[in-house]
């Protein structure tokens, strides 16, 4: 992530959370936090607890972030933000937490007087992690139409091309799903699992070989001991945790999308 991208990202994050950027220039920005975002980011629960008990006037903090030390004027004091900085990762986590679930309607702007049906879609953004003593991740975005069961990949990219709104547009009505959202999630999960099972898992095979090798070394080491003892058991558990290959599917975010027939 380039510094410029980080700067843009922060601007959008604060805007989306209703914070006013009270000062900004090349390489820096000062943000007036809202009460909610102060609680989210500033880690001062005692202050907020005290304020709620005493009924004082809340005074959320201002935050100055420097995204480029070369460009920022030297008198600006603030936190330096880069890709590895704890503050940025806190904001990353916050973005994930604040937008885990969503419901949106396509803002179709069709001619007046005509009722437009909107079909329900379940959209899920998913991370698939392949883990042994190493790890890699794959991002997937799946859309499932909850009436006919049609499934599409790269669903999120398709959504990005549409105009979406949190309120149902005029002259629109939603069709009721035939597939309940719960079983929709189940279908998507099964689809991904089936896909993973089709893959070539050389990595897992290799991890098991490494595991087996270390395990036999361990056995050999304790071969002559009458009482293998605690350290043997611990080492054995440690090897399992270190090498055992597994795939984890976790959901980043997702929700319901009501779209026109022609949208997908």
């Amino acid at each position: 992530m380039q510094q410029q991208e980080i700067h843009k990202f922060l601007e959008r994050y604060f805007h989306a959370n209703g914070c006013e950027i009270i000062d900004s220039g090349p390489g820096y920005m000062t943000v007036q936090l809202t009460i909610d975002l102060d609680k989210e980011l500033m880690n001062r629960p005692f202050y907020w607890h005290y304020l709620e008990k005493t009924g004082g006037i809340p005074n959320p903090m201002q935050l100055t972030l420097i995204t480029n030390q070369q460009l920022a004027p030297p008198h600006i004091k603030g936190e330096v933000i880069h890709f590895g900085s704890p503050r940025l990762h806190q904001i990353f986590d916050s973005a994930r937490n604040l937008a885990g679930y969503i419901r949106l309607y396509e803002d179709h702007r069709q001619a007046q007087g005509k009722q437009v049906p909107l079909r329900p879609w379940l959209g899920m953004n998913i991370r698939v992690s392949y883990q042994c003593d190493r790890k890699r991740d794959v991002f997937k975005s799946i859309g499932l139409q909850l009436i006919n069961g049609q499934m599409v990949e790269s669903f999120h990219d398709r959504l990005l091309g549409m105009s979406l709104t949190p309120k149902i547009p005029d002259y629109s009505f939603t069709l009721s799903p035939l597939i309940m959202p719960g079983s929709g999630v189940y279908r998507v999960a099964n689809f991904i699992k089936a896909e993973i099972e089709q893959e070539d898992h050389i990595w897992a095979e290799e991890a098991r070989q490494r595991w087996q090798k270390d395990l036999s070394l361990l056995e050999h080491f304790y071969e002559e001991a009458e009482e293998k003892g605690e350290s043997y058991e611990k080492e054995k558990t440690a090897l399992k945790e270190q090498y055992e290959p597994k795939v984890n599917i976790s959901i980043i975010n997702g929700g319901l999308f009501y779209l026109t027939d022609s949208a997908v």
Partner: protein
Amino acid sequence: MTVQIGFDSAWQDEFLKRIDDDGPWGNWELYKLAVEVENHTTIPDFEGLQAPKHLPNLTPLPHQLEVAKQVVERMNGKAILADEVGLGKTIEAGLILKEYMIRGLVKKVLILVPASLVSQWALELNSKFFIPAVAQRKSYVWEQCDVVVSSIDTAKRNPHRDIIYSLDYDMIIIDEAHKLKNNKTRNYEFVQNLKKKFCLLLTATPIQNRISEIFNLVSLLKPGHLGNESAFYENYKKDSRSLNDDVHLKELVNKVMIRNRRADTGIEWTKRHVETIPIEFSQPERELYEAVTELRSEENWVSSSQFSVMTLQREACSSREAVYFTLQNMLKRQEQPSIAFQEQIQYLIKKVEAVQQNSKAQKALELIQKINDKVIIFTEYRATQMYLQWFLKQYGITSVPFRGGFKRGKKDWMRELFQKNAQVLIATEAGGEGINLQFCNHIINFDLPWNPMRLEQRIGRIHRLGQEKDVMIYNFATKGTVEEHIMKLLYEKIHLFEKVIGDLDDILTKLEFGNIDDHLVDIFGKSASEGEMRIKMENLTSMIQFAEDLKEGELNAATGNS
């Protein structure tokens, strides 16, 4: 090939609940941002290092990056990092830890380091690696913090021990791991019983160890890698030091150990200047030394005493205080000292009292005044340390003491005082390890340790990455004493100080003759005459030179210079 697939159902439960409750629903812009975050933080490959991208303020050296890559990709996260002193093992360990944390493979970490380094480790991990490491000071820290730095001596004691064993650590890092070479100690047992999923052992001196020590260290990291105990010792003689001779064993060890040498790193190091400063005893000092030396001819003295004459001789070269202290101890240890023994001691104490000035201290004072900059003085004896501090104070020179026995906070404080307020740091041997003093570039070896590796560790405190000036080393050796002999051997015959540590390692391991200390004790302590001493010295020297030649031969062969 089937593989276990897990599905996180927490999202789904909450999702269904929100459908029932008709919200609350997230903001579309934030929703999109969350996906962008995901795309930026997804790591699509098993291989490669992510950590450097997260560390804009740190420019790791090429050898450090290579180590990190190798540990992650080829050693499965279990390794002995054995770079020479001063090549940045902490940076390597930090890179590896960061890599695993970024990839989400490691969350809970236990870092065991010498007490004097606890704060420094915590500080470096925080400032250089943005890893929220906490120095263990209160017992709740174990459970509440994910990355904890502690001394092994604290960790192994209850209540800490039980808490640590009950926690699930993903990674264990142990600094100065060569201290775990003996598998009979409590420290060893403590570490052996830790669950080590990923594990790094850091040490600067593994090869100097005997083969049994290598076995113990490797078995701690990866039990069975060198076979079990009986099979191992069947193959390799227990007291052998010939790790290098056994190609197979060397290969095995290299699978779990990485060792970079200064010469391999391609970094320009500042130079070392070594100056031997001969010291002339005053008459009373000479008499004390000789009185001590004469003890050797006394019947029953050596056998009835726990202290060898050698020790007293070496102390006499250091300070009268050191001799006095030892004499007092000798008297105390005897339950019912014979009259003769008491008289003997009294006689020596008179000699001690006759000494009015310390020639070495005078020389040190001159030198310190001339240098007019920060200086570290190393001595082997606490009595000398205390005397020197008093002595320098008489001349208005500020100094701070440093000992291995200091508590962590005190060590940090002394280092800080030295950096900011004092001109001289006076350290005893035990203070040599585990403290970095790159801001100083002058060392006075007030007396010399016999083990060359210890000498190297002293120098390594200041001649390391981050040292910007040439390093000046002043060795004091009193003329006509055992010190002068040692000096001749170490300095003139084997050119010890000019070598870099790796060479020395190599050379010492080429020699099949065990511990160099033992040889020195034998030469200086047990020789009946000057002549015998000289012959034994010659022998030792030629063995060392022979090993050097061997090494050069190997080098030539390796570079194809045939």
